Each structure stands twice: as C-alpha cells, then as structure tokens.
C-alpha cells in the first residue's frame, strides 16, 4: 500500500511535439493509500499511459512520480512493486494454472510454503481451485483472464494494483460476480487500486472515487455522486451518466437562462454579464413530464413546452426524447410512469435546484 503522487507529470511519445498534443498533459495527482479509484475516459485519452507511468513501464517525459514520498521516477518497473492486469489475458501457455499464479511470487523469491498458501487462497476466491494442474493453454478466454486477474492479485504486499479494463473480454453475466471477487480479494490487503474502464456503471459500482480524463487531461475527480450531481464541465456531464446530461443553450437574462420563449431558473446565477451565453445542464433523471391533468409545477420548477419525438425502452426505465425548439431534451422516467403518445406535445418540469449553469463548457461558480 502506498500513496502515489504525480507531480507535474506529462508524457509525449514524440519528442518535440506541440504540448497541446501530448498524450498526457501536465498533471498533478495524489492517490491515497488503500483507496479504490476508477479511471474513465474516451479511447485514446491517456488512461493506459497514466497507468504505465505509475508502473514504470513508461518513464514520463516530464515531472516526478513518488510513492509514499519517495521519488521513483527513474526506478525500473521491477523495483516498484506494482501489480497490473491488462485488458487481454497475459498467461504462459506452457505452464499450468498453478505455475502461472505462482510465477509472480517465485520472481520475488517468496518461500515455497507461503507461495503455496497464497496461490490456493487466490485460486479459491476466483473459483480456479479445481483446475490448478490444468495446462493454461487448455482454458477458455474467460478463464485465462481470470488467471491474469489472479496473477495481479496474488501478491499481497504490492504498493498498488493497476487494472486496465480487465473485464472487457469477460462475459457480461460474469462481470458482476467477478467485480465482487476482485473487491473481496483486494479488500483483504487493501492496496491502492486504480481501475481503468470504459463502462461507467462498472466504475461507479467498483470505485470509491472516479477520475475522468479527456484528451490527456484529468477533467474531474470525485465520488460517483459528485460526478452525477455536479459535473465540473459539460464533457463530464456528457460522459458520465446514461443517457448523458441535457444541455440547453441559452442566454443569461435576470439570473435565469433564456431558451427561446422559456426562461429557465438556474440553481445559481453565474457571474457573467446579462445577455451572455449560458448553457443549462440538467440530468434526464430530474426532469418531470407534466401530465395534462396533473398539477402544474410550482415556483421551484420551470415549465418547458416541447414535442415528444421518440421513446426508448430500457427495460426498467424509459427514455423520452423531447424536441424543445431546435434542441433535444432526454427525460428518463421509471417504467410505471405514464408516457404520452409519440408526436404529442408535453410540458416538462425542470426543478430549479437541478438546473446547473455552464459557461464556456465549465460549471459556473456561484456569482453572488
């Protein structure tokens, strides 16, 4: 277990490249010992690069990496004591399952008895105990990845466990139970865990804290709740959540946002002059479809008029797409809520406290 810090770390794979195009832009980051982090972001945003810098497989072109305050920037990978699990299984086909799991421990020169004990514990946790003497080449893709995971979790003295989309190749049905097993195994020795994933649901259920990256920058870090309730930028609002946050472009007018004929009340008034551009961000979960008969909204809600253009059935919920002027608004409603016919006009209730003001793509500070 260790606290990992990156001090002004940046990475470019092509020396002399324009800093705007670096794979990783200068970054300050502290990852607390024993916490579980999920790293999310679109493909190519630098997630693997960040992990490789932590594990030492890549030496950053700028900045310092420290573990528990000790500078490890130029320490080779093998001396950093980090475990990593890759997207695709990394196993040795010529060895049995047991030897594959024992390999990391043998490399570290552990005593036989301790190796045996640890291999058994991990194999049991991952449900591999019965096939320990099977040659690894005979396993299915899923099982191979299980062994990879096992190899990543077998050392209980590591500074950190890095996982780079470890469940991508795993059958969706198995993912849930596997995530639980990973949690269980890692909770035993509480390493610092960094878990890269494309799947935000996976990220939210697995990690205590999320790090959202985009184009080589860390955009926001926070608990799942923080990312959901107050995305620091329109990018995070768009990237986190399913469907994405709604963004309605408008102009500031008397502390509210003017969108066509509507004047949408904001959670707070952004510190920009009257008439400047402001974008209203609101999660689809917080918008209410006001039924013809039901009570109209009160003062805490802005009423917006639009036409229902499509409904997607997600099983437990439905997502309605509503055309408000020339902009689209998604509304997520629970299954039992009545949804009007496609094509009809509906009124939406936008709770004031959930309408966040964004200026130039960033969440505006409180202006008062």
């Amino acid at each position, binding site marked *: 277990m260790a606290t990992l810090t990156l001090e002004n770390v940046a990475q470019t794979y092509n020396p002399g490249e324009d800093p705007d195009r670096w794979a990783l832009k200068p970054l300050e980051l502290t990852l607390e010992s024993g916490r579980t982090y999920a790293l999310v972001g679109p493909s190519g945003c630098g997630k693997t690069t960040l992990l490789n810098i932590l594990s030492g497989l890549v030496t950053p072109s700028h900045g310092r990496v420290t573990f528990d305050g000790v500078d490890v920037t130029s320490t080779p990978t093998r001396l950093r004591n980090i475990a990593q699990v890759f997207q695709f299984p990394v196993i040795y086909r010529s060895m049995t399952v047991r030897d594959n799991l024992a390999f*990391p421990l043998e490399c570290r020169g552990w005593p036989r008895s301790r190796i045996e004990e640890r291999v058994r514990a991990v194999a049991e946790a991952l449900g591999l105990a019965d096939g320990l003497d099977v040659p690894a080449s005979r396993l299915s893709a899923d099982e191979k990845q299980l062994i990879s995971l096992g190899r990543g979790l077998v050392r209980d003295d590591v500074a950190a466990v890095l996982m780079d989309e470890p469940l991508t190749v795993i059958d969706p049905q198995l993912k849930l139970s596997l995530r639980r097993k990973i949690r269980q195994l890692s909770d035993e020795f509480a390493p610092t865990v960094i878990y890269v994933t494309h799947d935000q649901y996976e990220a939210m259920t697995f990690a205590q804290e999320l790090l959202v990256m985009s184009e080589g920058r860390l955009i926001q870090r926070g608990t799942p709740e923080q990312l959901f309730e107050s995305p620091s930028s329109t990018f995070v609002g768009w990237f986190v959540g399913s469907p994405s946050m709604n963004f309605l472009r408008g102009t500031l007018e008397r502390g509210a946002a003017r969108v066509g004929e509507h004047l949408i009340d904001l959670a707070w008034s952004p510190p920009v002059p009257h008439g400047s551009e402001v974008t209203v961000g609101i999660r689809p979960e917080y918008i209410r479809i006001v039924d013809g008969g039901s009570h109209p909204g009160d003062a805490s809600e802005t009423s917006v008029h639009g036409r229902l253009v499509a409904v997607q059935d997600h099983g437990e919920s439905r997502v309605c797409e509503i055309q408000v002027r020339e902009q689209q608004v998604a509304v997520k409603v629970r299954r039992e809520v009545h949804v009007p016919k496609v094509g009809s006009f509906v009124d939406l209730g936008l709770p004031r406290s959930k309408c966040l003001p964004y200026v130039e793509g960033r969440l505006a500070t409180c202006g008062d």
Partner: protein
Amino acid sequence: MSRWPRRAQYLLLIVWAVFTAMPFLWAITTSFKDVNAVQGHVTYVPWLEFEPTLEAWRQIFGGAGGVNLVGPFVNSLIITVCASAIAIVLGALAAYGLSRFRYRIGPAKNKDIVFFFVSQRIMPPVVLVIPFFFLLQMPGLLDTRLGLIIVTVALLLPIAVWVMVDFFDNIPREIDEMAMLEGCTPMQAFLRAIVPNSAPGLTVAAMFCAVFGWNDFFFAFRLTFTQVQTLPQAVVALNSSIPPWWTLSAAALFGIIPLLVLAVLVERYLSKGNLAGAVR
C-alpha cells in the same frame, strides 16, 4: 463449386506429387545399380529389370575404390549444429532487442537495422567470400572447422534475426511487461517469459538455419582445402569424367537423412495453430 475444378485440382496435385517424388525414386533405384544397369535402358523395378547391388553404398562408406563420406558427414554435422545453435542464441537476443527497444544508429532505426541484417543475404556470396578469406587467414582459421563455424554463423544470423524479429513482434508486449512488473529484469523477462513461449519461432528459425547451413557448398569450398571437407564438397568430389551416378545417388540420399530426421522432429511445431497465438 462443380466437381470438375475439384478434379482438375486433384489431377494437378497428382502430377506435381509425381514430379517431386520422381527424383527420389530415381535416386533410390540408381543407388542400388551398378555400371551396367545405369548405362542400359531406364529401369525402375529391382530384380525384374536389374539386379540390385550394394556396391554404391559400400563405396561411400569407404569400400574399395570409393570415398569415405562419414568424415565429411561428421564435419558437416558439427559445423551445422554448432553454427545453428550459436546463430539461434545470438539471433534471438538480437531479435528481442530489435523487437522491444528503440535503437538509433545515425539515421538508421530498428527497421533499417533489421534490413541491414537481411541484406547480408542479398549480397552475392562471391562478394562475401573474399573478406571472409582474409579474415580467417589472419588468425590461421582457414581450413579449420572453427573457421567454417564462424563463417556459417555469420551467414545464418541474418536468417535467424529476421525470423525471430517477426516472431517476437507478434508476441504481445504485455507478456514482458507483466514479467517486469513481477520482478524480472529485461533479460530475465526474456529468459523466463519469452523464451519458454517461443518454441515454435525458435524451431522455425533453427530449421532454416540447419537447412541453409547443411547445404552450404560455396563457402566451404572456398575456405577449406585439405584438412576439413564438408559433405557437399565430398559429394561433388565424387564426380569424375564419367559421372558415377550410383555413388552420387547413394551420397545424395545419405546427405538428406539429417534433414529428413529434422523435418519429422519439427513437423508438429510447424502446424498453424502452434505458430499463431503462441502465447495467448
């Protein structure tokens, strides 16, 4: 597909099979003939068409009036095995480096360096043999097995490097990265994680080396004189004004035995499944 193209394919294959098998049949029957049987009509069936004799085989193993090929055979074997082994070890190390690390020699990058290796084989042997001659002459290695081994290593290395670079490039980097994460130095990662998983690649490279090494005539011919003779040299030396087809046939058959054994040994490594995805 209708049946005719398929039948045509079979027909072609049969013709081809006969075409490739004929020289062997011819050599086998000829090696059991004597002068008279060879000079008569073309005959194939022993006892019916000609009287088989072991004379040719006796001659190549030192019988009266013949040349003993066992010595040259042993020479060839030693040179080929040693040179292949050295070429594989050096070649694998070089190939691993070229596959995993970035090098720069002036403007040359990894790809250029690999091409530089291969280009050694593009050059006509005549061009290479003169410098080799002088290089061996100085330390007195002309006409020795050691000298020939050194030259053969130089000739086989490009093949080994070329085959192995390609092979290592197809082994995912994560394999070595994982080994390093687990506490290996780059060299240990190579030895403990890569080599054990490279049997197919190493086998293919070894086979190429063995075949090229075994069949070398030109360099042995130019760089040895009386002390050391390799099998191809000895076989050519059997020739006289009247080609002794029977002993030549026996010698040729004798000469391909090691390659046949090798082919049988490595055959199982050469199946597609073993070559692709050696690791995952």
